[in-house]
């Protein structure tokens, strides 16, 4: 079976012009593949390159070298070689990124934040809101907060909204950073179940996590990074 993601010889470094051109190596010769439907966990200490790896896949970071072959609906493409518009198209249709913290947009309620991916797709508001409410309920976010503004919520509440938004419209490839951070044990289990459930909808997941429980119950395979290199 063709891998969904095939990363070969990936290099990423940062050149800090402010620090007189000091170079920092973030990823050195990274190679791995992800099969369709797999749930991969990226592990490693802070600064080991986990986030950099995800961001290189999502193209937030410009890679220095190597190839990231992605099996899109239009065939296999090298994510590093695509132009801006092609990347934007993939981000709209196939690849989603859920960052560690919720990015807060002023004046948008919790429910709207979660419903947005469906609204963007063109779904009617009532249908989108219904699905959003269903997920928020399952994640245990109290109804009172649904019309509240996330900027005022606790870390855990924000995280629930973040995850809800990521899973409401399951993408082909989901890159998710610390899905269960700040969550209590019960909610953790719900989130893990939901993420596993995405598999049946055709989603492949690459996630970063420090949490032992998550790694045990969610992830099929771990990739461990140390100072930008994969070690096993």
């Amino acid at each position: 079976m063709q891998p969904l993601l095939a990363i070969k010889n990936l290099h990423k470094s940062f050149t800090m012009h402010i620090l007189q051109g000091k170079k920092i190596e973030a990823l050195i010769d990274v190679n791995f593949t992800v099969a369709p439907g797999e749930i991969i966990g990226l592990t490693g200490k802070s600064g080991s390159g986990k986030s950099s790896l995800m961001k290189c896949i999502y193209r937030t970071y410009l890679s220095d070298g190597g190839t990231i072959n992605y099996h899109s609906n239009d065939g296999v493409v090298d994510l590093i070689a695509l132009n801006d518009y092609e990347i934007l198209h993939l981000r709209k249709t196939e690849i989603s990124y859920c960052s560690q913290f919720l990015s807060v947009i002023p004046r948008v309620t919790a429910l709207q934040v979660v419903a947005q991916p469906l609204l963007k797709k063109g779904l009617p508001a009532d249908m989108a809101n219904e699905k959003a409410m269903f997920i928020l309920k399952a994640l245990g976010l109290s109804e009172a907060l649904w019309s509240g503004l996330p900027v005022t919520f606790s870390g855990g509440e924000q995280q629930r909204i973040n995850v809800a938004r990521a899973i409401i419209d399951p993408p082909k490839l989901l890159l998710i950073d610390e899905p269960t951070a700040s969550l209590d044990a019960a909610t953790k289990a719900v989130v893990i179940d939901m993420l596993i459930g995405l598999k049946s909808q055709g989603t492949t997941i690459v996630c970063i996590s420090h949490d032992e429980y998550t790694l045990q119950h969610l992830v099929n395979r771990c990739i461990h990074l140390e100072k930008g290199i994969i070690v096993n």
Partner: protein
Amino acid sequence: MNHYSENWLLKVEGLTKIYGKSNVRSIENTGPLFDSNICPETGAIIACADINFELFPGEVLGIVGESGSGKSTIVKMLYFDMEHSAGCVSFHKAPYIGKNILNESNQSKRAIRNHLMGMVYQNPRDGLNFKFTSGGNIAEKLIMAGNYHVGTIREKATHLLEKTEVPVLRLDDLPAHFSGGMQQRVQISKAIANHPPLLFLDEVTTGLDVSVQAKVLDLIRELQQELGIAMMVVSHDLSVIRMLTDRTLVMKNGRIVEQGLTDQILQDPQHPYTQLLVSSIL
């Protein structure tokens, strides 16, 4: 995948604006490497030079830079508020396909401004006529597009004010009596009155209070999603750029120093100036 590269709505090539007399070396002796817009030999000011970029339908493009970077100059030239010194701008809308719209007649330019472009200025006084009511300002655009029915004009104006969350009761009030944020929203209503495919926003929230800023930005974001208008957002404020745009151009001393996806520009800036700019966010 490559069908994207030909689908642009607006294509800008070699756009240049020079004040004063320049010579053949003026452009190459100015720019970010020289940290100057002024030609050392003739004293000519190169406000911007060699500007090349494309804008796709429904895309939001940000232009960020500090004062004197030339960002407003570009938008002013595209909206025909200012004469260009050189360059070609192609607009993929009939009947202008294949033409350089910078060289079109005044009549054509006015038609383009009325039907195909909308502009929101930093200062509402530039975009609104303070002697007319808010409804009258919107009516001006509708009349220019050939609406001569007062009832219909008022209906459309009311609808637009509702969309921009301006109280409909203020339809017949003068903008001079509105707050800054409301004036901006009336400007936005006027700009989108004829459903143009392209909207320019020139520092539209600069100078507004933070809460008002948030309201206006949110409105712009909603309108963009609802109407699918392509937008060019000029700002020196990176958080505005982050909130609204998909792609960004970074400008310094009249040149584009970096362009790319907005999240890449903000999180993995390549050019030294971009790194400086991004690290300066409070």
